């Protein structure tokens, strides 16, 4: 059985083929929801943003250019949505001059108590430490790490998604992983907590 490439599917979506859009939805709903979940933390908001990303893909289907990889285009849309959501949430929360919330904690973008309870039930202590360390990174570094580590993109594609140079991505990743290496030292040393 021949598997259609994302490009073929997207070209057919451009011509109005609903089945091809469904196939793209099937392929990318899981990675996209996970990406948003790691970017914005709140499960309900992550789903909402992922749905919005697919809607934007559909609405912009006539503007899709085949010279760009579909995933690059998709994650660029998704990253812009995530950044906007993070900034919106940060704008609603009073902060001190260094970007931290007034209570001294790093800004927690979304505080849905229900989602937090659900998350707390399924989250391990190690998972919590990693999440908090990645959430504390500046948003560009956070996006770079998540795209690299969890979406398994190479630095060239990350550069295309974030619209920065490849050397800038290498630098972003290095600084982010250095920060994480220090913050997650107990996990890196052998996993004892």
């Amino acid at each position: 059985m021949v598997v259609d490439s994302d490009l073929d599917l997207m070209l057919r979506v451009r011509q109005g083929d609903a089945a091809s859009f469904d196939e793209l939805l099937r392929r990318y709903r899981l990675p996209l929801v996970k990406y948003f979940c790691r970017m914005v933390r709140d499960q309900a908001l992550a789903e909402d943003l992922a749905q919005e990303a697919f809607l934007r893909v559909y609405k912009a289907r006539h503007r899709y250019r085949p010279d760009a990889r579909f995933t690059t285009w998709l994650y660029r849309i998704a990253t812009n949505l995530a950044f906007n959501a993070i900034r919106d949430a940060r704008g609603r929360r009073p902060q001190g001059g260094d970007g931290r919330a007034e209570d001294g904690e790093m800004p927690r973008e979304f505080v849905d108590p229900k989602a937090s309870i659900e998350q707390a039930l399924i989250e391990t202590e190690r998972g919590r430490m990693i999440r908090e360390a990645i959430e504390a990174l500046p948003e560009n570094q956070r996006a770079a790490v998540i795209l690299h580590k969890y979406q398994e993109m190479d630095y060239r594609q990350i550069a295309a998604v974030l619209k920065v140079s490849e050397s800038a991505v290498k630098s972003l990743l290095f600084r982010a992983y250095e920060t994480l290496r220090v913050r997650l030292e107990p996990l890196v040393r052998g996993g004892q907590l």
Partner: protein
Amino acid sequence: MKCNDREKLFLYVHQMLQSDEAEVVRRHLAGCADCARLANKYRGLDAALDDWSAIEPSPWFDAKVRARIAASDQKKRGLFGFGGVRALAAGMAALALIVALVVVFSHRGVVENQQPVAVTASPHQPVSAEAARQPLPAEEQLRMDENLRVLEDYEVVANFDALSELPQANDD
């Protein structure tokens, strides 16, 4: 390669170096225990990050996306489609009717509320000379000015020469 070039070491561990640069780092690591230890920490960090799991999409995720697309399509058709134009026209007509009714009833309300000075409001009642000399309330004057404009418009249309040149219905 120097030992303090941690970025190069990091890029080597994550396979982001060109092959010739990677070869230089590989040779350095073979003879430098400190850098080899740091490289292992980068690998350990990469493995540790696997412990952060994320949620799965809800079972109704696809249905919600399709519903959003359908709503978006409907909105687009509603604005630009033929049905949309008819609906828009019907909506405008309904709105105009509502506005007209509101104007009529509010006008009646003003007239009823001003019964004591109705001497000037009703053309059917005789107006005494003394009442006629009384200055009109501001609202009443405003309403009369509006009526005057309508009369002026009617006069312009009634005396519009171009209309008289049009063939009349009973002309043979």
